[in-house]
């Protein structure tokens, strides 16, 4: 056997290798975030957030207002679709026959669904919505995002509801309150912070999706009205994608600014999500 010193040196060496691995992952992240801020910040102003891209691509001014509005509309629709279905499915898997075959299957395939490529969901919604209605649309994009959000919401809501003490349910039932009423007025409110966190994280992920929207919302140079949902729609991500693939520096600059807006938006959503969870854990302590 080697000397203790040699063995300890080897152990320290491996700890050093591990730290190096952390740096290998963290340094590119810092470069990405740094580049996005440095290259994006100079163009950022109110006009960028509200104006559409100039009609002539080479012109200066304008912004990603169309895409920002489209992203808000489609993530909103996705949330409206995914939250009720996802939360109620989670109610089934935790409150009713949680060890039964259906609950087990739902849990398992919700996990599997989080690994399905988002472009495939885009293809599915294309065949179901776009081919049926004959047009790319805000609806189609929102439905695609809703499908992508659903499994995340099922799993996080389930975790949140499992943390609700059984005693609370029993107390409610002992008072003669019905099962559904117990769930709606006791279990769900108690689990609300956890559910909210899951929903916010799902929204952040949906806002960053590009591939499924390419096949469903398609993109649109003009700002569409808040009330118009049946025509092609732009998104922040689609505008970044289209502008950064162009050769003109002015378009690439817009793409960087768009990326900055997107990352800030996504980070705000995840920070709020973390804050909600942090407040709950403090309170229960």
């Amino acid at each position, binding site marked *: 056997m080697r000397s203790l010193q040699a*063995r300890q040196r080897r*152990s320290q060496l*491996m*700890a050093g290798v*591990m730290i190096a*691995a*952390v740096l290998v*992952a963290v340094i590119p*992240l810092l470069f*990405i975030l740094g580049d996005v801020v440095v290259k994006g910040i100079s163009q950022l102003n109110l006009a960028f957030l509200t104006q559409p891209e100039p009609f002539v691509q080479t012109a200066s001014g304008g912004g990603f207002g169309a895409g920002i509005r489209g992203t808000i509309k489609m993530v909103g629709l996705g949330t409206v679709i995914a939250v009720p279905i*996802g939360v*109620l*499915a989670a*109610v*089934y898997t935790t*409150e*009713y026959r949680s060890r039964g075959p*259906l609950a087990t*299957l*739902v849990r398992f395939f*919700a*996990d*599997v*669904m989080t*690994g*399905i*490529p*988002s*472009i*495939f969901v885009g*293809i*599915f919604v294309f*065949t*179901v919505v776009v081919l049926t209605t004959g047009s790319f649309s805000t609806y189609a994009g929102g439905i695609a995002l809703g*499908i992508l959000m*659903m499994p995340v919401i099922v799993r996080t809501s389930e975790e949140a509801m499992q943390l609700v003490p059984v005693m609370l349910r029993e107390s409610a039932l002992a*008072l*003669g*309150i*019905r099962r*559904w009423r117990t*769930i709606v007025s006791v279990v769900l409110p108690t689990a609300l912070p956890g559910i909210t966190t899951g929903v916010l994280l799902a929204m*952040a992920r949906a*806002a*960053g999706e*590009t*591939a499924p929207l*390419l096949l469903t919302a*398609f993109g649109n140079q003009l700002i569409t009205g808040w009330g118009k949902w049946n025509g092609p729609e732009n998104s922040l*991500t689609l505008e*970044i*994608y289209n502008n*950064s*693939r162009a050769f003109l520096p002015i378009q690439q600059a817009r793409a*960087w600014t768009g*990326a900055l807006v*997107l*990352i800030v938006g*996504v*980070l705000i959503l995840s920070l709020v999500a973390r804050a909600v969870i942090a407040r709950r854990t403090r309170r229960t302590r």
Partner: protein
Amino acid sequence: MGVLTRSADRAGESVAPTGSADRYFRLLVTGCALLVLLLLAGMLIRTTWAAWPAFSRYGVSFITGTKWQPASGQFGALPLIYGTLITSVIALVIAVPVSVLIALYLSEVAPPRLATSLTYVVDLLAAVPSVVYGLWGVLVLVPFLTNHIYQPLSTHLSWLPLFSDFTSGRDYLTAGLILALMITPIISAVSREIFKTVPDEEREAALAVGATQWEMIRMAVLPRSRSGVIAAVMLGFGRAVGETIAVAYLIGGFPSITDHLLQQGSTIAATIALQFQEAVSTPIWKSGLIALGVVLFAMTLLINIGARLIIRRAERGANGS
């Protein structure tokens, strides 16, 4: 008094003979649970149906054909399957050791405080949208790699087929590098969870017989985590296979079967994204791309089901002991 009457009302409500509200509610939540499953089945059936023209016309040659040239009516997906696998393998070769080492550091070595904040930073890699990876990759990474790595490599090592035929910096290797970065957070997060299931008693037992920290990891942590780490790697593989937009930026978009890693290529997902807008008006091309989507779905479904089964068994084993 008010409280009393109210709870009395409640009690009366629950012994009411119908109880139909409970039944409807149960029906509603069961329906939602079923819907999640039906959605997955519906996706498979509907897309396969839409892809049928391509599948029935080309049959097995859709998978085995070596030419993907929609303009001349040739739909052979093999170069795309090859591209998907080669980029994913490059990504895994880099990301697996890095991610496992990160997970070991965060769960076994780092002081708890530091581990918490570093975990958050590594998770940030997963929060960056793929379009941003693509943007950064094509405007920053590609020029950097071209000037400082690829050109020297192809000048000095061009006798190695791996590095000959350098073209544009958009190639298999670049796509694989970005994918490595993108799948690192998922592999390290799942590995970390697996390492956590190792009971502390086993760590203490190793340390008690005089093991150093690294020996403790090799004796207690790694052997118990092998299947879980394999599952984590499979999840990362599934992500890499399905990643679309970042790869579409960086792969070049010319399907090819070659071991020259500095040549342009394409993947299944990238081809769908890059050709879709053009293909919409040509029925067989459109159907071909949908068929590609079905192939991609089947691949990722199998990978993910396998990974989840392993993870479930690992967790059950940990709970049982």
